[in-house]
């Protein structure tokens, strides 16, 4: 792997980073993929490579300058067809911290409003020199479609209910910091799992890392085909997956609890009777967390509806690592952009 070169230091800042070694790659693993579309195709070694690269990036972020020139001359375009605060901002910060040129496009302010198709849009962006596209789109499979029709690298910033790989990777990054090796750990993911790209990408990555996952929520918001019993999973070294409507069982002995955002617009329209009814059964509260392990951390991909899927005292309590997740998001997205962009140069 190429070393992370430092940006030209500002006059008032010492060139601290100049002597820093490059991040150590996982044994024998190099990034070779053009795109990062989901975690399901990644090997455990590739996931480890991203997380280790992210550690090095976090270190860069802690330096006084906080940026390097590793991607100088690389153009990163963020193309967002949905509103986003943290994902879009952290992609932009990540690209800038690596010295890349950044163009931010929102679908509402682009030719998309005039009817331009996704395929034509990504071809246009490639023609004007985009090397990496960070794409957020409401349709599942949009990132795969874009990736097929451009030579630029596509990093999926969330497509419909399908995948959100950088979110899952930053979640694993955060969990590893607190829990160490994730093999044999139990992670409970609670909420509208059926419509959650965060839950899917986490499920694939966590199972690949050997963690057991409990997916929990009202029956109408749960997938029906994701269960993988321990006996079967252990043969492959993958973690198991349990799908349950029983919150107490899902939280029992959990090492990490992830609450998913309950989309208000979806409630009261069929799948769930009301927010109130959801809160009664599935809100993550201090009392309910007593079933989890004493050291268990509480996570949320944001944005949170405090008082719905998570009680305010939990969201801001000692177990909460929500802000750490956001900070880790920049490091993980730096790692993703760095790996994709440097693979392009080879």
């Amino acid at each position, binding site marked *: 792997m190429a070393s992370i070169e430092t940006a030209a230091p500002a006059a008032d800042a010492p060139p601290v980073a100049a002597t820093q070694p490059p991040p150590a790659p996982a044994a024998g693993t190099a990034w070779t993929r053009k795109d990062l579309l989901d975690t399901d195709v990644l090997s455990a070694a590739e996931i480890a490579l991203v997380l280790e690269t992210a550690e090095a990036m976090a270190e860069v972020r802690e330096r006084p300058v906080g940026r390097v020139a590793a991607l100088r001359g690389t153009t990163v375009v963020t193309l967002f067809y949905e509103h986003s605060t943290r994902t879009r901002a952290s992609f932009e910060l990540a690209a800038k911290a690596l010295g890349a040129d950044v163009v931010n496009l929102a679908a509402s302010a682009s030719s998309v409003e005039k009817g331009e*198709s996704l395929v034509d849009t990504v071809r246009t962006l490639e023609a004007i020199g985009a090397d990496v596209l960070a794409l957020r789109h409401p*349709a599942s499979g*949009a990132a795969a479609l874009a990736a097929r029709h451009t030579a630029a690298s596509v990093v999926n910033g969330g497509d419909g209910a*399908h995948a959100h790989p950088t979110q899952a990777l930053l979640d694993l990054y955060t969990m590893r910091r607190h829990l160490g090796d994730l093999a044999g750990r139990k992670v409970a993911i609670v909420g509208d799992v059926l419509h959650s790209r965060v839950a899917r990408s986490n499920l694939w990555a966590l199972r690949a890392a050997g963690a057991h996952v409990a997916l929990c929520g009202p029956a109408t918001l749960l997938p029906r085909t994701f269960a993988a019993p321990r006996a079967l999973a252990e043969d492959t070294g993958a973690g198991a997956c349990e799908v349950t409507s029983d919150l107490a069982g899902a939280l029992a002995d959990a090492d990490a609890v992830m609450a998913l955002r309950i989309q208000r617009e979806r409630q009261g329209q069929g799948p769930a009777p009301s927010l109130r009814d959801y809160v009664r059964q599935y809100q993550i509260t201090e009392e309910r967390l007593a079933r989890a392990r004493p050291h268990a951390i509480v996570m949320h991909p944001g944005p949170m509806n405090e008082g719905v899927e998570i009680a305010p005292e939990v969201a801001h309590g000692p177990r909460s690592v929500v802000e750490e997740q956001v900070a880790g998001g920049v490091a993980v997205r730096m790692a993703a952009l760095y790996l994709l962009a440097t693979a392009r140069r080879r």
Partner: protein
Amino acid sequence: MSALLIRGGRVVDPAAGRDERADVLIADGRVRAIGAGLDAGGAETLDARGCVVAPGFVDLHAHLREPGFEQKGTIATETEAALRGGFTTVCAMPNTTPPPDSGAAVRGLLERAGRDARVRVAPVGCVTAGRAGRRLAELAELAEAGCVAVSDDGDPVAGGDLLRHALALGGALGLVVAEHCDDPTLSGGGVMHEGATGERLGLRGQPAAAEEAAVARAIALCELTGGRLHLMHLSTAGSVEQAARAKERGLPLTCEVTPSHLFLTEEAVAGGGAAPAYDTSAKVNPPLRTERDRRALLAGVNEGVIDAIATDHAPHAPEEKLREFDAAPFGISCAETALATVTTLAARGELDPAAALRALTHGPAEAFALARHAPGAGTLTPGLAADATVFDPDERWTVDPARFASKGRNTPLAGMELRGRVRAVVVAGVLRHAAAPAEAAHG
């Protein structure tokens, strides 16, 4: 009119129980004789050795797109596609703009077909005015204008009361009511089968129950009215089972399946690679289902529960399918691969060749009683109109949508090697299509 002798083929006509090596002599638009060693006289001869000579295929379900959607297909292009696929009669579905909901509209369609069509076109009229699901279309007028059936295809008939009335009235008019069985409150917004693949891909699913509940409704109303019901493009094991039980009870219903549902499952959407492909060419309504469903559909054809293999040929313009999966339209351009799909399944031992050929010829002709309009459709009978399809059940070829006659290149079979190819097609005694055998045939 000139004469044609189709020589040396294996003549198979399920309607007549015929399966023998024989020549077929055609003159003046009609079958003149079927037998060994017929004298060509002055007739043009067609060498059919190694081939099956069958009645021209009958497609109960094709979307010709004209009028209104000429960017997807026209009567000229889509009947040429049907012709190359071995179909000599196609039933044109009514989801056009304007839809054929009046005698004038049907006559207009027949006039265009008379000018442009390469095969016989049998119009299917609307059940409801404007295909809008609010009030019945004038069914007697549609029957008089030449409709062989009525349907609101693309959608189910909106209300149970309308379907009931259509069945009751259609029975007396000789009109089959062909129902697209779906409960939209259950399937609404679904873009593929609700199951393992859809969950993995994060795509909204249509549960099998959405079709099966609507099949149950249609069968109950068939029983209530005694009207002639046809269940279109069945896709689930539960639907086949219901149709079988209804037939056992003697209800006047028929049903069809598409080659796509016989050949593919929900996994076609994901494709064969490690990362899901979201192949919009495999987006079809009803959706491709599970392997269990596929096996039940195959058994349905083999056991005669399913009367017809109908293409649901649904061409779309390339840019319409080059979209996000959610945004792409439903439909597969199927006419030119239908036979090869069937013969490939037969070669694998999954389809009984005799049952499959019946479901391409006599089965559909009987289902819509086409003999009233086109005597000879679905059979090779001396004295009747000569529609014949000659195919080599073994010839291997690779599907290349760029070579389709259809404007629709939307097939999930692109690049796939199939076995079985149409070699010649005769419509009303005229050799309309003749394909040279592939260089690597029998390879």
